């Protein structure tokens, strides 16, 4: 039976009440308790720093060469917080409500409310750490808008907000390393969780430089290992982002929550060819000022600037007048796909829409000309001033676009298309962020908890830091308070020995298959199955076929994969083989979850379930629950349902019209 441990009481008092009554660990006992943290992105680095500050003995692991490189660094647009600095009607309740609604009523109210509550502390903490957020001339913090909201609550540092927040957390982490509270293991990959007497007690990690397997004990283990978007091969995730840690936890008894909830981000640079290794996001902040359109005529081969204004279809503004270009991501992505599928796509692949800055350049240009006292400015003067403003706001994004495509976005509209970006699903956790394995926690994107079926822009950074700075330092005490009498377990314990042997055997098997096909080629094939049949639109037949195809692919992988190099050395192909093997298994579960959920909600769009206007049709009567999957054996899962109860934000048809 799933116990979500939601505290009793009214929604906006739950977290305060919880904090007031939660068990504490006294400082002298904290020194004796060891915590393992896997992953050093926003969630992992902030947790490692905060728990180190509290006096726990922390060991942190990352597969990159430095904790500063975790993929949180690539987040561009911003971080939400209910500060209401703009006096535009924001509040903790509104942030809570927008997040629940944005998630299409598939998130847990109590968790989301807590997230909205601590959002304001995050901004304060980051400013104190020296995160250089954008500021106004008066010296105070600046905000901008993001999709799915009608207030300005997004804090940002140009197009590099994730980088600046991560560096803040990384520096706090390195400070704890210097103080001896955290021991850092870079270029290490977790390959198993060690469970003793039903509790998580450590991990098996591989030193990626030497190839050696290491055993590490911890009184608790925190997985802060991000999302699994790379199951699609092409995504905006970093090349190394993987599901392995979460998948090993799943195999050791942790349930997987809502695996099919994937976010397809509407504004990415389109695929240019078969060689493509990853996709690049263009920040959602670009939808603040850019207008999205396609030609009104099907199969129009004219260049963008040859198509007159009246022959352009600004389809988001047409379909959703209230939110226009700032509808939530799932809605914007589906609308782009709909236009392209109907034959209105642009570019050589016809799988793209335009994101146009011409009118923003004109609008800003006129304002600037006014400021400079230019009466009747020439078109050229307007343009020149407008370009300057756009450059200051979005310059780094425009430069990135130009480097990748070779086209100048100040002259031509950008071509964009949706791409896999984030996974709302993840390890099932309770209110305390603990998985179904006692002592094993999941934070940040690695858990399923806060975004329901669709995440709003600028909320991933908020959740990662909320979990690490302000949630886990409280909730972990509730578990560790009962562990103070548990002495460190020697890593010669049979459970460690067995786990290490299992890992070593698998590595040897992978290495010794010595087949004919590369790891990369399997990954590409998996990605294609997932994108075609479990991507932006899903249907019963496709999902059933996908499951069959994935099973065949799995058998073929274990029969014919070719892994070069040795085991006891730096071997990136071996690392990749381990990860792809796990992605294949995850792919099957995602399709199974998508098949079972016979409703459309958020990013999960079942073609059989749509309104006449082509909008997602939720089925609250039958599917108002979290799917938590328990692994029973190879390719065999049991579904557990956590009912979602909405006491405050009552589900309604999500409308952005």
């Amino acid at each position, binding site marked *: 039976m799933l116990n979500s441990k939601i505290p009793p009481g009214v929604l906006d008092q739950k977290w305060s009440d919880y904090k007031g009554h939660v068990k504490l660990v006294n400082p002298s006992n904290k020194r004796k308790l060891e915590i393992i943290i896997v992953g050093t992105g926003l969630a992992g680095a902030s947790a490692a720093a905060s728990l180190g500050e509290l006096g726990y003995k922390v060991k942190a692991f990352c597969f990159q*060469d430095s904790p500063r490189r975790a993929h949180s660094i690539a987040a561009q647009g911003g971080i939400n917080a209910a500060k209401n600095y703009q006096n535009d009607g924001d509040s903790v309740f509104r942030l809570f409500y927008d997040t629940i609604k944005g998630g299409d009523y598939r998130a847990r109210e109590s968790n989301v409310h807590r997230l909205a509550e601590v959002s304001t502390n995050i901004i304060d903490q980051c*400013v104190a750490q020296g995160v*250089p957020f954008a500021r106004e001339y008066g010296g105070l913090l600046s905000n901008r808008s993001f999709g799915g909201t009608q207030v300005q609550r997004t804090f940002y540092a140009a197009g590099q907000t*994730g980088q600046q927040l991560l560096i803040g957390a990384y*520096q706090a982490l390195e400070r704890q*390393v210097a103080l001896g509270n955290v021991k850092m293991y870079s270029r290490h990959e977790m390959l198993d969780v060690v469970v003793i007497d039903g509790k998580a007690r450590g991990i098996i990690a591989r030193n990626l430089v030497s190839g050696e397997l290491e055993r590490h004990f911890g009184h608790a283990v925190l997985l802060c290992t991000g999302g699994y978007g790379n199951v699609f091969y092409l995504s905006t995730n970093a090349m190394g982002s993987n599901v392995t840690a979460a998948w090993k936890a799943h195999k050791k008894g942790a349930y997987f929550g809502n695996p099919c909830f994937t976010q397809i981000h509407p504004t990415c640079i389109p695929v240019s*060819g078969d060689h493509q290794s990853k996709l690049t996001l263009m920040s959602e902040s670009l939808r603040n000022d850019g207008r999205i359109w396609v030609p009104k005529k099907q199969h129009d081969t004219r260049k963008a600037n040859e198509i007159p204004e009246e022959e352009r279809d600004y389809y988001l503004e047409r379909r959703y007048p209230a939110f226009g270009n700032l509808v939530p991501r799932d809605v914007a992505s589906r609308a782009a796909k709909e236009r392209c599928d109907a034959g209105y796509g642009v570019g050589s692949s016809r799988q793209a829409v335009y994101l146009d800055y011409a009118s923003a350049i004109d609008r800003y240009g006129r304002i600037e000309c006014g400021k400079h006292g230019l009466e009747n400015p020439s078109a050229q003067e307007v343009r020149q001033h407008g370009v300057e403003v756009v450059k200051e706001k979005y310059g780094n994004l425009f430069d990135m676009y130009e480097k990748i495509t070779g086209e100048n976005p100040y002259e031509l509209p950008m071509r964009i298309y949706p791409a896999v970006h984030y996974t709302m699903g993840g390890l099932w956790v309770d209110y305390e962020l603990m998985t179904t394995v006692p002592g094993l926690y999941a934070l940040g994107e690695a858990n399923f908890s806060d975004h329901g079926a669709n995440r709003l822009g600028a909320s991933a950074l908020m959740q990662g830091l909320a979990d690490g700075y*302000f949630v886990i330092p409280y909730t972990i005490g509730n578990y560790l308070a009962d562990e103070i009498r548990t002495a460190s377990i020697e890593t010669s314990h049979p459970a460690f020995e067995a786990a290490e042997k299992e890992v070593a055997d698998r590595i040897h098997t992978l290495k010794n298959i010595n087949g004919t096909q590369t790891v990369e080629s399997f990954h590409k094939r998996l990605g294609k199955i997932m994108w075609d049949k479990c991507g932006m639109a899903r249907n019963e037949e496709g999902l059933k076929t996908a499951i069959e195809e994935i099973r065949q692919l799995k058998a073929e992988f274990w029969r014919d994969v070719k892994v*070069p190099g040795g085991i006891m050395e730096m071997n990136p192909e071996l690392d990749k083989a381990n990860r792809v093997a796990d992605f294949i298994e995850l792919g099957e579960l995602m399709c199974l979850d998508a098949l079972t959920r016979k409703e459309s909600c958020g990013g999960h769009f079942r073609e059989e379930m749509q309104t006449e206007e082509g909008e997602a049709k939720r089925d609250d009567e039958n599917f108002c629950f979290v799917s938590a999957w328990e692994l029973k054996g190879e390719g065999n899962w049991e579904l557990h349902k956590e009912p979602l109860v909405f006491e405050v934000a009552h589900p309604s048809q999500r409308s952005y019209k």
Partner: protein
Amino acid sequence: MEHYTMNLNLQVWRQKNKQDKGHFDTYQVSNISSEMSFLEMIDVLNERLIREGSDPIAFDHDCREGICGMCSMYINGKPHGPWEGTTTCQLHMRAFRDGDTIVVEPWRAKAFPVIKDLMVDRSAFDRIIQSGGYISVNTGNAVDGNSIPVEKEKADASFAAAMCIGCGACVAACKNSSAMLFVSAKVSHLALLPQGSPERKTRVLDMMAQMDKEGFGSCTNTGACEAVCPKEISITNIARLNAEYISAGLTEDK
């Protein structure tokens, strides 16, 4: 944009591990699209090497968006290759022409030992940050984010320094393998903010001491670092670092 394909002659540094002496191997790659990124070109070569039964070229990379700082190739004598303000992962093959020879090496610096092929160990940078590259504020201690206004110009300058991705191109480009641009970016980022002020003196002294300890060389102001920095971190940060260092050194009180 005109697309074309090309055949190239690659000379790549191969080194089995830290102890190995290392050598160049030559590879011919054909049919490379001008739309590929440089790393995708290496991917194509690696796939071929694996199929042929040889060891693929090991290199560091992760985000492939120019922000994580992991990629680190020294291409035709320049860190991150021919384009200005660009990381290796953002370098695209349009930068090259059919028939070109491209020489690819790892970062070369005493403080960055080679791990394998084009991968180096940059943990020295982490240890420099550990020595003082932070503001000592525990979680939960913070005051309201708007309680201390920060002059926009200073906040912007601080951000411009904080954009450093810690890739180490500055060290690789410097004839003395100095890490001054990296250290100055961090010192500037924090010194320009009121929040960083209390530890201003100890920070710069400790970070400089750690830099020397790690075996990085001295700065002779040739500007090679600034010229190759993918984030175009300005050398004026080094001037600020020197000023901070001198003033911290001249006053004993902390």
